[in-house]
């Protein structure tokens, strides 16, 4: 029985690689997801994930399924869309969510068209849904490097990042770090999406950020705890998803996201902080 849990990893090299990959993605993605959620940017993350597609597609057109070309293309496109959406919302009447929606629809259509120009449907599936079971050394190094940079950068940015969410006016009155912090945070989001993109594809990469983060909100009122929980939930979902895909012969990327979704659903129902069960059967009120 327990064999089922570690057997696949002991037996197959590609499963071990996938395991390392998802753990690294969870380490960086969880805390980023928590901040995206608390900054009410959950959908921004989603839109930016799509925005990466045409950049990666251009890289693919020029160099095929090459890691550096698609990474650089994706990073470039992600940053361009993030900055453009920010500028448009600042200087026109369009709010940021509307301009992001416009950009991501364009990006998705453009990206799929670009990939189809040269590649097969298999390549398109690769770009859209990733290949977590086929991570080579350099991709693993890239993902692990991105997680390392993310965790370190968050440690440095933590204070202004929290302050900018809670009380931006106050941060502006005591320091000028607000805008650079925001920009660096957006940079980290793009980085993590590009890392996740190689394993899970543009459409699902954001799932390893938002689902663990959203689930953690139901268990804690403390941001540090939420970040730890989101990492833990991400890792558990990654392992669970890989096992599910192995034993049930499901595609690995969607299996991982489905597992994370199941953890989210369970948290939504059972979570101590505002879970549905506790709302439906509240305990008796206290004296004070």
């Amino acid at each position, binding site marked *: 029985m327990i064999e089922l849990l570690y057997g696949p990893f002991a037996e197959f090299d590609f499963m071990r690689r996938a395991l390392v990959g998802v753990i690294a993605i969870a380490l960086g993605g969880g805390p980023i997801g928590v901040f995206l959620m*608390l900054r009410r940017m959950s959908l921004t993350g989603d839109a930016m994930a799509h925005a990466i597609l045409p950049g990666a597609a251009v890289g693919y057109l020029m160099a095929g399924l090459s890691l550096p070309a698609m990474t650089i293309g994706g990073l470039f496109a992600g940053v361009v869309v993030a900055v453009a959406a920010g500028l448009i919302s600042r200087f026109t009447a369009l709010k940021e969510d509307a301009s992001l929606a416009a950009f991501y629809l364009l990006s998705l259509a453009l990206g799929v068209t670009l990939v189809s120009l040269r590649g097969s449907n298999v390549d398109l599936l690769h770009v859209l849904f990733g290949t977590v079971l086929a991570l080579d050394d350099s991709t693993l190094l890239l993902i692990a490097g991105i997680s390392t940079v993310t965790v370190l950068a968050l440690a*440095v940015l933590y204070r202004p990042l929290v*302050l900018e969410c*809670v009380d931006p*006016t106050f941060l502006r009155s005591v320091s000028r770090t607000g805008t650079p912090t925001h920009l660096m945070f957006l940079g980290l989001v793009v980085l993590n999406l590009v890392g996740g993109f190689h394993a899970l594809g543009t459409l699902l990469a954001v799932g390893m950020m938002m689902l663990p983060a959203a689930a953690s*909100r139901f268990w804690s*009122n*403390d941001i540090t705890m*939420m970040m730890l929980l989101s990492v833990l939930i991400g890792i558990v979902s990654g392992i669970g998803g890989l096992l599910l895909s192995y034993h049930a012969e499901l595609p690995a990327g969607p299996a991982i996201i489905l597992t994370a979704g199941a953890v989210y659903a369970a948290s939504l129902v059972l979570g101590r902080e505002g879970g549905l069960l506790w709302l439906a059967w509240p305990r008796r009120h206290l004296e004070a």
Partner: protein
Amino acid sequence: MHKNSAAIRFDEVTLGYGRRPAVHHLDGEIASGSLTAIVGPNGAGKSTLLKGIVGTLRPLEGRIDLTGAAGAPIAYLPQAAEIDRSFPLSVYDLVAMGLWSRAGLFGGIGAKNRTRVEQALASVGLIGFERRPISTLSGGQMQRALFARLLLQDSPVILLDEPFTAIDAKTTADLLDVVRRWHAESRTVVAVLHDLDTVKRVFPQTLLIAREPVAWGETQEVLSPENLLRARRMVEAYDPHAAPCERGAA
């Protein structure tokens, strides 16, 4: 002694949005260590004036000199502070933000500053609330916490924008004690207020403003019935055909 030095000096200051003035040609100074109330009707430019002093709004014309503040950051409590109350943060952490100028981006807080945080919480009557999430605070408790944060900022100049609006009598009295303490410590305090009784009881100096400054000086003289009536009349309607202001243009 503080009569001699100005904490904040206004030199023909016009502040506004677009080209429309909200504060029109304000000239004068706020003495270092003084306790000043800014009074006037809604739309008179009171909050705009504070934003101008803090520097979030740049004057359309004229200068604001913060000579007396000696480069230290101003402690500013905006009207209805745009705080995300749903953010998972404890009261302690919210208050400890006041230590920013000491601890900065990375600095640890240390035992000495922990004592400071506890003292600040005690001064505003929030002992026992340290671990509570800010989402559970009432309006008055939130205002107490924000005053504790101001205390920790330890700034020579403190600006308060309608700090007692929608706050009950007990909380107002407690927080006014904090204001009196700042005054006793020779800090410069400027507060936008609507309750004229509070102004008369606590604030020696008053600036009465209705876009144009109406009167400025000793509270008793400024808040005369004639001045208050003038202030009421002065908030005119928006004029779509307003001509460029010629005052001081030469």
